[in-house]
């Protein structure tokens, strides 16, 4: 019963908006705003078929590679910086500088340095999306409870075991907060990196359609991006529930107490 209710909540507003859109465009002849039916047909024709292989999959592949590298690197560097005090003092000004640079401006630079290829696009994603994971991991690692630290010390839990059983789980709530932000930044940068010097991908295709005045086709690309965003968010929520189920339980227990 609750699942039905939740599904109705989740779909209710989109359904209402599509209905509104349909009502407003029912006798519209605007070149720039397609009708819902027209867009659905275009979406199907454009994206279920060859374009799925030549543009959709390459984009998703770059996004996946970029995000996986972002998360792994961000956690590794963040944990390192967070747990070594001199390293933190040393890197803090630099990190503030680097994260203040808007990542899209790196695209022309990286094109020159790496070339126009997949690596460049993956590096663009990492260079912009890594900051939330990295900085949140630094904070999470710094905030480990001193009683837990002392417990580990008194039971002589050190080295790798300390990382595995204390540091990483303890910082995982902050890490997940960082990852959530990184996912949306990664999606944005995937599109931007494909708009510059690319011959495939969603960003490339959307610009191509726009230049060819293929307006419904352009819109369909934007819808595909939105759908990728939804899928990312669902995957994140499932992962988060698995990784942080203890955290939500703990928080609830503390609230009820």
């Amino acid at each position, binding site marked *: 019963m609750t699942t039905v209710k939740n599904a109705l909540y989740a779909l209710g507003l989109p359904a209402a908006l599509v209905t509104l859109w349909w009502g407003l465009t029912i006798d519209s002849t605007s070149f720039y705003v397609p009708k819902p039916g027209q867009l659905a047909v275009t979406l199907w024709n454009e994206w279920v078929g060859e374009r799925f292989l030549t543009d959709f999959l390459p984009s998703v592949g770059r996004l996946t590679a970029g995000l996986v590298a972002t998360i792994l690197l961000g956690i590794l560097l963040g944990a390192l910086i967070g747990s070594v005090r001199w390293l933190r003092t040393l890197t803090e000004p630099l990190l503030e500088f680097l994260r203040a640079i808007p990542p899209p401006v790196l695209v022309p630079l990286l094109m020159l340095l790496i070339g126009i290829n997949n690596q460049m696009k993956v590096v663009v994603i990492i260079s912009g999306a890594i900051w939330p994971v990295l900085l949140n991991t630094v904070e999470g690692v710094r905030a480990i*409870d001193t*009683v*837990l630290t*002392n*417990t580990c*010390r*008194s*039971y*002589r*839990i050190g080295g790798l*075991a300390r990382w595995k*059983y*204390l540091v990483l*789980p*303890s910082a*995982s709530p902050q890490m997940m907060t960082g990852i959530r932000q990184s996912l949306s930044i990664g999606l944005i940068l995937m599109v931007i990196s494909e708009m510059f010097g690319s011959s495939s991908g969603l960003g490339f295709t959307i610009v191509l359609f726009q230049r060819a005045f293929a307006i419904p086709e352009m819109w369909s690309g934007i819808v595909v991006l939105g759908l990728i965003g939804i899928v990312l968010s669902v995957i994140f929520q499932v992962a988060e529930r698995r990784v942080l189920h*203890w*955290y939500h*339980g*703990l928080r609830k*227990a*503390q609230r009820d107490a």
Partner: protein
Amino acid sequence: MSSNPDSTTPTLSVRGLRKVYHSKSGDVEAIRNLTFDIAPGELTCIVGPSGAGKTTLLKCVAGLLSITSGTIELEGKPVTEPPAAMAVVFQEYGRSLFPWMTVQDNVDLPLKTQGVPKAERAQRVAEALAAVELAHVPRSYPWQLSGGMQQRVAIARAVAYRPHVLLMDEPFAAVDAQTRADLEDLIRSIWHRLGVTILFVTHDIDESIYLGGRVLVLSNSPTVVQEDVRIDLPDERDQLTTRNLPEFAEARSHIYAQIQRAKTTTGNTIANDATETAH
């Protein structure tokens, strides 16, 4: 249990312990000069007014804090880092258990990282959980349990570790009175069964008398040992009858008077007394 063939060698020996905290606003001398021995298998309680440096002392003994001068020896070896033969139960049970691990994983973790074989680990974890009467909740998470149960998990973890010395830092200060009485009896029974040496810090005078065979009364900071009290109560203790014994009342008023004195006594005044007596 005891690894000391010679029972006259103290398990724990503290000599001239001094601890000064350094900070930007100046140095604070938390402990002036502490000297005492704990014999193998003894259950000793440490009481003192609040701010007497009880927790500082315990952390020094546990090897968690560096000491300014003096020596701490466990079974003849100086303590410079947390020794393998020691376990600590902290006051903050809610913060000393890993909230991302189940009860049995919490108890198991120190054994796992020490490289105890898997079959033996399972047996030791089960035994320890049974000893604290928590055999029915191995797969629960700590935050699903009451405060008293959480502290029992922490005790089970220490028991499974099989330390020679168990340090307890006001472990029952944050639980309700009924739970506290149950946990006191639990500590007595574990102590009987395992023959482990226990150093138990508390601010509760009755608790120190009920639990131990010996009570060390600390002075106010900078801390010295103000008095070393033997508790002559029968070994079989009971929350009702033991606490009603005349010896219990006597020990309580004696220690209470000592604590009242301790509030105004510091390492400084005792040193002055000594000089005056010497004159």
